[in-house]
């Protein structure tokens, strides 16, 4: 009865208010505004990084200075003054509390307001039932169940608390902030950082390479199935800070990991820039499942404020029989520019992309994926569901290509768009390039509105218009919802309802 629950949730919600719009008053340490070599040095020094890392950043910065902002995406926004941003902000509690009890209570309160606090996460994950003591309270307990979620909470730029870390260490899994990894595991970082998204890959990725503040690092050793879902909550909090996450996940031979990324951000007027880079590497027979729920502040009804989300996400199926699966639910941000991609290098490797992109108000989404088939017998699958409402613009932009030597490459793509209201736009821009005859590519796209018959049927059975829309939309995106880890599914259904508020009637 998930659909009914959704309707109830939609009912509960306060219309016209971004539920997660609040600002936490925590002192933070800011770098001066602007971007220069000195700032790059400042960031590197703040993080106490080795010399090679500083050189890496400076090289990226120098290249970035010669690059131009891309303009091909179907998004429209005032030019960003890159000199008018802070490139580093750290909450003062950088000492790193060992458990939630030690965390600034205001922070915990923030998470509570988010509706997806760490403890709530436990509930959603079914680790404990409501009323039972939280397992977070006795994090030292030696055993770990399969339904647990380890969370690396990122508050602004610095990883504040990492739970379950010790238990993961027992399995040999390294799950820490990237700054820690640079110090503790320099060989792994040197080997893989920038190997999927090169330092100067594109304008935003290069900027990220120069100034990235923090992010997650995951290494799953050979033959290990990561005992729990790994998860990071991103928050952008400090005013006028760009958030430059850098995530690197390496799944060594025969390993498996499922990684969840979810985020919300407080309401404010200044546009905020977010330029993250996520790199995934799978070696032979390894698999990474990467799920995202993105619900940053989309701006107000007139499109004022809101997050600029310019993200480079790419996975490299480097080994044979490896697999990378991206699942994303994009409901927030004023502007989304995001193309999680798979490079299918290893023979028999697989790539997947499941996406729900919802835009309302004046949001602009230009998102999609690239499936680049290089190895033999590689296969990929793309399911994209775009929903645009209000005065928003929602674009799917994707590439499927098979290299000359990628014999027997297979792709199936399904892109569906749903339009709600006559002032929004839905666009589909797929590129399909088959460079050898054994490639089998199928692409299908449809665009339509919610059918009057469906609405009539639902309303005739007593649902009001908004309930009916929520029900139908949840059905429309079902194929993708099913790909989400259990913990995210309920949350996402709720989000879909919230995102579409005020879109009918």
């Amino acid at each position, binding site marked *: 009865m998930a659909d009914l629950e959704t309707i109830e949730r939609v009912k509960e919600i306060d219309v016209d208010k971004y539920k997660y719009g609040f600002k936490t008053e925590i002192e933070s340490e800011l770098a001066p505004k602007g971007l220069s070599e000195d700032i790059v040095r400042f960031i590197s020094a703040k993080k106490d990084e080795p010399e090679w890392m500083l050189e890496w950043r400076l090289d990226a910065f120098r290249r970035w200075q010669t690059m131009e902002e891309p303009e*091909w995406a179907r998004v429209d926004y005032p030019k960003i003054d890159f000199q008018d941003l802070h490139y580093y902000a750290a909450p003062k509690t950088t000492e790193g509390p060992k458990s939630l009890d030690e965390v600034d209570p205001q922070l915990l309160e923030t998470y509570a307001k988010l509706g997806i606090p760490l403890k709530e996460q436990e509930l959603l994950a079914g680790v404990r039932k409501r009323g039972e003591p939280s397992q977070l309270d006795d994090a030292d307990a030696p055993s770990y169940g399969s339904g647990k979620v380890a969370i690396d909470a990122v508050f602004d730029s610095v990883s504040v608390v990492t739970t379950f870390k010790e238990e993961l260490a027992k399995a040999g899994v390294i799950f820490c902030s990237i700054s820690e990894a640079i110090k503790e595991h320099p060989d792994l970082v040197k080997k893989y950082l920038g190997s999927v998204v090169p330092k100067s890959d594109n304008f935003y990725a290069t900027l990220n390479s120069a100034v990235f503040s923090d992010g997650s690092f995951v290494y799953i050793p050979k033959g290990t199935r990561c005992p729990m879902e790994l998860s990071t909550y991103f928050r952008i909090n400090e005013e006028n800070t760009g958030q430059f996450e850098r995530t690197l996940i390496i799944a060594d031979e025969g390993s498996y990991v499922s990684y969840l990324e979810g985020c919300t951000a407080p309401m404010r007027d200044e546009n905020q820039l977010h330029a993250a880079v996520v790199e995934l590497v799978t070696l032979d027979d390894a698999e990474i499942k990467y799920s995202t729920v993105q619900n940053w502040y989309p701006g107000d009804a007139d499109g004022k404020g809101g997050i600029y989300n310019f993200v480079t996400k790419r996975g490299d199926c480097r080994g044979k029989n490896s697999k990378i699966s991206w699942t994303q639910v994009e409901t927030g941000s004023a502007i989304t520019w995001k193309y999680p991609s798979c490079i299918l290098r290893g023979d028999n490797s697989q790539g997947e992309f499941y996406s729900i992109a919802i835009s309302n108000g004046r949001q602009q989404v230009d998102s999609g994926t690239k499936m680049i088939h290089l190895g033999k017998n590689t296969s990929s699958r793309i399911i994209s569901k775009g929903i645009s409402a209000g005065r928003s613009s929602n674009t799917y932009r994707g590439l499927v290509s098979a290299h*000359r030597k990628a014999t027997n490459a297979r792709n199936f793509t399904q892109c569906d*768009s749903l*339009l*709600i*209201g*006559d*002032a*929004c*736009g*839905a*666009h*589909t*821009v*797929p*590129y*399909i*390039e*088959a*460079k*050898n*005859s*054994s*490639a*089998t*590519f*199928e*692409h*299908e*796209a*449809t*665009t*339509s*509105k919610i059918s009057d018959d469906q609405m009539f049927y639902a309303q005739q059975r007593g649902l009001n218009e908004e309930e009916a829309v929520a029900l139908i939309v949840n059905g429309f995106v079902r194929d993708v919802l099913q790909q989400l880890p259990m913990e995210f599914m309920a949350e996402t259904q709720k989000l879909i309802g919230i995102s579409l508020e005020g879109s009918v009637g």
Partner: protein
Amino acid sequence: MSANPNRTPAEETFVSGFAAAEAALPSADWLKRKQALAAFSELGLPHRRIEAWKYTDLRNLVDGAYPAQTETTLVDVEQVQSLAQQSIFGDLGRSTAVFVDGRFRSELSSLPSKGAIELLSISDAAENAPDWLSNTLGTVVPQEDDAVSALNTAYMSDGAAIHITGESKEPLELVFVHSAGQPRTVSQRVLVVVDAGASCELFETHIAPADARYVSTVVTEVVLGDGATFDHVKTQRDGAEAVHLANLHAKLGADATFNSFSATTGGRVSRQQAFVEYAGEHTTANISGVYLLSGTQHGDSTLVVDHAVPNCVSREMFKLVLDDQARGIFQGKVMVRPHAQKTDGKQMAQALLLGPDAEFDSKPELEIFADDVVCGHGATAGELDEELLFYLRARGIPKDQAMALLIAAFVGEAVEEVSNEAVRDALNEMATNWLTTHKTGA
């Protein structure tokens, strides 16, 4: 128009050769040659950095200078006639207008008797053009942003201006023949004005000897009045060394029917673009085509369908058979403007890759700003289905024959879009002939 060191030899020849060529070309102010040349010298030949030309880089593909053909050429009449007789429309009762190297040849043509159909040579009519010609030519084609149209307008040497005022009983065929000789660029123009309620069936044949080296540009403008019907079937069988650049621009009135089918087997490089704009409601446009390419042929079909008004229907169906190292490209954009409600748009592009190194690139695009629409597209690429082949062979059909059957069925689906049964048969026969003259992996 300063000399630009970055120009390719082809571009340089087009820009610098204009002054000399202009004197020899038909002259009239309404032809607007100078403006077009200025636009071309600004644009240059399209290249892969221009998104719409990503897969067809003309700067690269038009290799070397192809000076514009301005004069009437002296050709072997028998050779021209034997080429013209290869037209697949030969058995259909139709009148013909034959153009040789870009000039109308009345002695080779059999023009329709005066009636509902009026056909003029643009060159002959230049100085004394009727209003429907001088006021319409160039109004459907946007001059500034398309280099091919600009080049064609600057250099058009001749073409057909057709005005249909009623129901034309007899189909009309335009035959464009090219002769062997020095490399050259031939620019031909077609204008079709179909009055309200009138109908027109137009065939178009492009044919040349295999060794002729030329760039052929054909810009066709079609204006359909309310309730008008237009059936267009084109066969592009240019020479193996030819570059064929065709732009079809159509503006459709209300309750009109527009059908355009093209079959392409010729040319080293071909790019055929269709731009359809709806000016009135309840109109249907059907654009379809077949590409049969082998060797290193490069065939590009680019469509832009602009649903500017509500209640219109568009259908596109393209089938490409690519052998050897042939490269096929399909780019189709369906635009639905705000308030163009109740739009129904469907598009399908399918490629059959026969040669191991054949390539198919496609970019079906939807750009939708209205909500009450039903739009969709599909694109597929793949080899012949092994299972189907096995089925046929298990029933004793030799491999070659089984393949031919499957390919014919694949192509036939697009040919089905043509309403005239006799034309369908002729097209299927053309496809079968292509198959038998190319070994299909046997």
